[in-house]
């Protein structure tokens, strides 16, 4: 391990230890937070008991579905938008504003459109995630060196082959950047929607546990979401870094 990684681990370890001490000595009372070791024990107990596995599975599956849809649609939309200069120029201010708009306000509308079920939740996650993908992929396409596209023409590649063999591999790091954001946004969308109006899923379970002062359920669920999002983000980040290093960009 590199020295920086050791320091980082030590820092995070110290932070957890501090929390542990504060909780054990009662400086943070039990109603506010459980000591970290207790959260981990609760998490393991919760997972092995399996009572909430269905809720966990539902939320994760919906988030991944929203994420996947956003990746495919967003990348395709960016490839098309890049060719439609005028449309893109017109949409630019929308993209710049998008993440300040409270997309959750549209949730009731979506419930009426799609009924109370998984669809409006997935749709919210998708709506939040897709713009991050479009913006990242567009900035990737803007940065493709012209000479590479000329090379594709010299090799007589069709439009489809050019996309598959030149454009997509060239923008791969940007797609991964988009993927990291899209994953976070898909989770925010799905879990947020479950907070607002839902009868199942991790978001629902967390707010239910919160109302009932059930910290033994609430904290493990939050920890699980944090671990899952940070874990997947780190994997994508590693991958992104590998590509950048290979290209001499990092």
């Amino acid at each position, binding site marked *: 391990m590199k020295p920086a990684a050791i320091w980082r681990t030590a820092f995070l370890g110290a932070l957890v230890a501090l929390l542990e001490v504060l909780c054990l000595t009662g400086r943070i009372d039990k109603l506010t937070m459980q000591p970290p070791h207790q959260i981990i024990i609760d998490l393991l107990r919760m997972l092995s008991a399996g009572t909430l596995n269905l809720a966990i599975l539902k939320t994760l599956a919906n988030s991944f579905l929203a994420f996947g849809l956003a990746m495919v649609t967003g990348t395709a939309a960016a490839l098309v938008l890049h060719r439609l200069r005028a449309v893109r*120029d017109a949409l630019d201010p929308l993209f710049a504003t998008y993440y300040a708009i409270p997309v959750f*306000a549209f949730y009731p509308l979506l419930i009426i459109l799609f009924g109370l079920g998984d669809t409006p939740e997935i749709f919210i996650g998708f709506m939040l995630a897709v713009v991050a993908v479009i913006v990242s992929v567009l900035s990737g396409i803007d940065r493709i060196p012209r000479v590479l596209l000329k090379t594709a023409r010299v090799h007589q590649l069709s439009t489809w082959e050019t996309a598959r063999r030149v454009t997509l591999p060239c923008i791969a790091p940007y797609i991964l950047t988009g993927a990291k954001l899209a994953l976070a946004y898909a989770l925010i969308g799905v879990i*947020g929607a479950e907070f607002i109006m839902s009868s199942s899923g991790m978001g629902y379970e967390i707010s239910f546990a919160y109302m009932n002062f059930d910290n033994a359920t609430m904290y493990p669920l939050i920890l699980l979401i944090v671990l899952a999002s940070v874990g997947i983000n780190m994997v994508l980040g590693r991958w992104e870094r590998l590509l950048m290093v290979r290209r001499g960009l990092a």
Partner: protein
Amino acid sequence: MKTSSLDRLRNGLVLLLVLTGLWQVLYWCVGDVALRSPLETFGYTAYLLGSARFWPNLVETAQAFGLALVISVVMGLAIGFTLGLSRIANAVFEPVLVSSYAIPKITLYPILLLMFGLGMSAKVAFGVIHGVIPIALFTTDAVRHIRPVFLKTGRTMGLSPLEMAWRILLPAAMPEIFAGLRVGFSLTLIGTLLGEMFASQRGIGYLLMNAIGLHNVDLIMSLTFMLTLFAGAASVILLAINRRMQQRT
């Protein structure tokens, strides 16, 4: 290809018209159950602006947002400059920052509620945890990528560290830092609103959450319309300033 500011203005107007058109079409398709037409929304917005119960909530939100923004900017810049100038601090802490950017912070609202209680501080904290990270990350990057020759020039002229920061670091990194502030502005706003939706009993976010719960479509539409308009106008202005800065460098 360069787009002139006149073209941009035209693009913005076209976008507004198209969106309003789509809204109207959607209204025709969906009907009164879930939507109001643009015209009805404008009308209700005017009524809302004239009503007494709206303004205290707006003031509440403005205060929370303003406070959250100030804290986000100050903390973000401090973290950014520290990580940008110190190689070691950067190597140790930047991955932590990047990872925490990925956490869906909305899940943390119960913890913030338990820590701060229902009220002002909880929603300010919610705004700050959304806004501070992008500002810190952009600033770190900006400071780290200042051309070394600028720093060398400063050193050969015998500038003190403070002069160095004020006369070289800040102006050189400003366009990039400002881009971070722009993103931070949006995210602090949405964070504050989410905080109000889940962790408050006052403010625009609370009104919105309440309207969702009571299925008050008029109110939902009006509030969303106003928030979008405000966020849109602010980000267009900030974007224009940012563009002007980047043109200079």
